[in-house]
């Protein structure tokens, strides 16, 4: 993994990455980079041992790699589900949140802030902060608050303060802007827990490292269950933390195809006039640019103004993507594909009905890709990044707008 090794020192992934942040944040980012090297890379004070023990006892790791029987017979290849939905909190997000909150504690910080889109990162951060006795404040767009209400209650129950963000479209992009501003004001005693493999170095590298437990476990479990490597690993990609977490252990295994499934929304296009993209497919149709501290692939107009993105899934609804994923796509190591809102909803219902697992709408994109995929091979690992309980209100609403094959009547809720 030559690029990734280099990134531990430079924060660059080919042309991508870097540290494009206000001057006031640079000392904090240097301090974080130093702490990342000492505690995460060098296991100083036994940090990584502490982290792994907490992931096990508090988080419930390892999560299973489950053979999905119905899906396997439907597709004619063996589908293995990496069950991150069974991690404490119901999504992979805890791997990173617990790592960063623990790191902040080792660094002597007193307070945690975080941005959240779907609320999964916010809830994971709130849980980790409560577990480690840290103050926690979460920034969340108003539109996302309305479509992810259960997570709002969960964050409050864990003692986090919730800060609604009303600017722009009221989604993850605006929440991230606001969290960065708050960090610039309180940087001396506060750590900003970025929820994905985005942002300035060292975040993309560090978040990947905390999430890489997903692929590391899956690789060992695949060895036990199928006697070798899978042929493909499929994961949804918004910012890309579950994606990089699932892929990282396999990047050097050339026989394993890595497929990042983006949110195609209602169409893979950009509307320059309206300043929006009805999708969140920055790997598929984005152009290189700088947003939120890093150079990466972005949904932007000709001038470089960032576009409003869209997805039925709040957790994928973001105009950027992790710089390492952008580089892996340019290198043809990761294949970027997309799935639209309709197909994701169908996959949501399919997994719920046929496998007894209600997946997150984010995950549903990865599952939907199996319908049309070719050449995934005999053994396919799909990362079930989270469970869908948080999405039920959205799913009821969105299902009623559509004619989805096999979806149950939602009228009972009226």
């Amino acid at each position, binding site marked *: 993994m030559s690029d990734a090794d280099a990134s531990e020192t430079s924060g660059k992934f080919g042309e991508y990455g870097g540290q494009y942040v206000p*001057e006031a944040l*640079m000392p*904090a980012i240097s301090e974080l980079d130093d702490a990342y090297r000492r505690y995460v890379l060098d296991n100083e004070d036994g940090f990584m041992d502490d982290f792994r023990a907490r992931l096990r006892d508090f988080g419930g790791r390892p999560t299973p790699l489950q053979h999905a029987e119905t899906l396997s017979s439907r597709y004619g290849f063996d589908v293995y589900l990496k069950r991150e939905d069974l991690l404490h909190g119901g999504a992979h997000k805890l791997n990173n949140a617990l790592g960063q909150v623990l790191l902040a504690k080792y660094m002597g910080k007193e307070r945690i802030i975080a941005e959240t889109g779907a609320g999964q990162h916010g809830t994971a951060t709130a849980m980790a902060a409560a577990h480690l006795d840290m103050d926690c404040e979460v920034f969340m767009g108003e539109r996302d608050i309305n479509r992810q209400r259960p997570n709002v209650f969960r964050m409050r129950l864990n003692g986090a303060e919730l800060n609604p963000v009303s600017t722009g479209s009221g989604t993850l992009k605006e929440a991230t802007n606001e969290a960065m501003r708050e960090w610039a004001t309180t940087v001396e005693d506060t750590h900003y827990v970025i929820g994905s493999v985005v942002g300035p170095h060292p975040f993309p590298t560090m978040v990947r490292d905390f999430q890489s437990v997903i692929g590391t476990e899956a690789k060992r479990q695949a060895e036990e269950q199928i006697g070798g490597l899978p042929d493909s690993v499929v994961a949804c990609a918004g910012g890309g933390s579950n994606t990089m977490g699932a892929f990282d252990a396999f990047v050097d295994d050339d026989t394993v195809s890595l497929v990042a499934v983006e949110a195609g929304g209602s169409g893979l296009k950009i509307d320059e006039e309206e300043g929006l993209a009805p999708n969140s497919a920055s790997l598929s149709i984005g152009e290189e640019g700088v947003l939120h501290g890093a150079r990466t692939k972005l949904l932007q107009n000709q001038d470089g103004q960032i576009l409003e993105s869209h997805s039925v899934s709040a957790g994928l609804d973001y105009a950027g993507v992790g710089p390492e994923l952008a580089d892996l796509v340019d290198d043809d190591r990761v294949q970027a594909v997309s799935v639209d809102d309709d197909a994701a909803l169908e996959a949501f219902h399919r997994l719920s009905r046929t496998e007894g697992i209600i997946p997150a709408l984010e995950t549903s994109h990865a599952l939907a890709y199996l319908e049309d995929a070719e050449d995934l091979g005999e053994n396919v690992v799909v990362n079930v990044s989270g469970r869908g309980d948080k999405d039920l209100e959205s799913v009821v609403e969105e299902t009623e707008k559509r004619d989805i094959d096999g979806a149950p009547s939602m009228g009972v809720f009226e």
Partner: protein
Amino acid sequence: MSAIHAAFEDTDAALVPYITAGDPTPDATAAQVRALAAGGADVIELGLPFSEPIADGPTIQNAIQRALDAGMTPDRFLDLVSGLDVDVPLVCMTYFNLIYQYGDDRGIEPFVEAAADAGLAGLIVPDLPVEESDALKAACDAHGLDLVFIVAPTTRGERLERVLERVSGFVYVQARLGTTGARADVSDQTHDSLARLAEADVPRAVGFGVSKGEHAREIVAAGAEGVVAGSVFVDIIAEKGTDAADELETTARELKEGAVAGVAPRPERT
């Protein structure tokens, strides 16, 4: 000496106002700039609006949104600057992505060249720390533009040295942690920052939270060569819309007089 540096040398204490170009309409900006110059501005910062202004507080975020809604773009911004007939050096404050995307080919050179052709004297890029600035600095040098860097209360030691090696025109001293916006008082951090920058060989202008003549007086009395004020002017435009020129001029004059009043007690610079 660059035009910006010279503008500081030509006055006892410089006033550097900021407004967002295109707020509330692209046509309103020229009159606003003339009013600020008439009120005593020595250098004027013109914001080129970017959709994700992470270094700005709510006042300037709203101005940026108004300007974007009214149709301000990088091309219109440069046309506007070309058409201005003021005697005051103009600095463009914008975020890196707009510079990077300008022109048909991605890269910083086309913007810097167009900025110099339009008559801009310098650039301030609040999301471009010195570590990422090699290419932009080289392009600015090649086209005779100053690249102004912000020094925060947290900028110290080796990083401060690197900023000071590279900065030209003036150094923008961020008075306190946080984002832009008017505040009630002058921060203690200002005094510390000015002391750390005593050896700088460019003028020091203090900004972030400067809204009154009294602030300007205190900052200059603490040793600064100038003050930067933005939100106070942007607030006037938010209230008066296209009819803001008179009040901009009055407020600029008040701040300029405050700054100059701070000169007498100012300590000798070592």
